[in-house]
């Protein structure tokens, strides 16, 4: 839990996403649940009512619904940069699952680790970064064309 022992990154956006067009970074959502188990009750309710609306609202995301015989229902989200996030949804209500899905849709696929600074600029300095000669008067005068009297 030390800052050097755990990974950290700077704040960044994926290819300046919102500046021009906004591209949803969620590529694929797979909902793995069981048809008969008690833990997947909320997931089954969500699939009955909410999944189709969600899929229509997010045309850029592919939704896979896979009923398997599994003990713990999961939602696996894959992002455009290749990161995969698995969320366990045992004993969650349909409402909670839809909130979770909206949260995952709004995330970019960047790692969820400590962000070093809450801000980031490409151009931090407008008037020019300070260097030791900024506030020193120049030692030579302005450069003028050579006068002809010397010749």
């Amino acid at each position: 839990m030390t800052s050097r022992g755990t990974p950290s990154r700077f704040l960044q956006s994926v290819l300046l996403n919102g500046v021009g067009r906004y591209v949803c970074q969620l590529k694929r959502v797979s909902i793995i649940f069981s048809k008969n188990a008690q833990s997947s009750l909320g997931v089954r309710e969500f699939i009955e009512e909410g999944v189709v609306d969600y899929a229509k609202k997010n045309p850029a995301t592919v939704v896979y619904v896979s009923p398997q015989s599994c003990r713990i229902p999961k939602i696996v989200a894959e992002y455009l940069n290749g990161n995969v996030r698995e969320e366990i949804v045992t004993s969650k209500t349909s409402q909670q699952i839809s909130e979770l899905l909206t949260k995952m849709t709004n995330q970019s696929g960047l790692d969820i680790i400590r962000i070093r600074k809450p801000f980031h600029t490409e151009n931090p300095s407008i008037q020019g970064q300070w260097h030791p000669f900024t506030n020193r008067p120049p030692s030579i005068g302005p450069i003028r064309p050579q006068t002809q009297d010397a010749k």
Partner: protein
Amino acid sequence: MVFLTLSCWIRNRGPDRYWKVQEVLKHARHFRGRKSRCYSLAVRAVRRAFVYATKSRRLKQRNMRTLWITRIAAASREHGMKYPALMHNLTKSSVQLNRRVICDLAVTEPRSFLSLAKLAQARQQEGFRAALGDGKEPPGVFSRVVLLH
């Protein structure tokens, strides 16, 4: 002859030792020497590292503030003012910039910092005139603090 007590002497140790050890060692992987490899040394080193991490969360704010103050002092000395004079006159002119922002201005925006230094200098001169003068001269421009509600 059947040895019956031999089986009573066999102990079943816990099955999870490897993972419990790895939980500690994973926090020690970037350490130097045997405390990154040997469990008994690593336990002590990891505990100290965590203690230092907790304590330094308070220290970090203090250190950052002293860094900003050092940088502002250096920048203001370039313009012929000292740090306490600069900050006091800026607060008197109701410029509510904190040290972090003024430090960033001094680094990335040197001309804005120059204007802040000149403002503080002018306010300082007005203060001197008000204190040393007779009160017959009109008060300066920057001493009129506007109270916005």
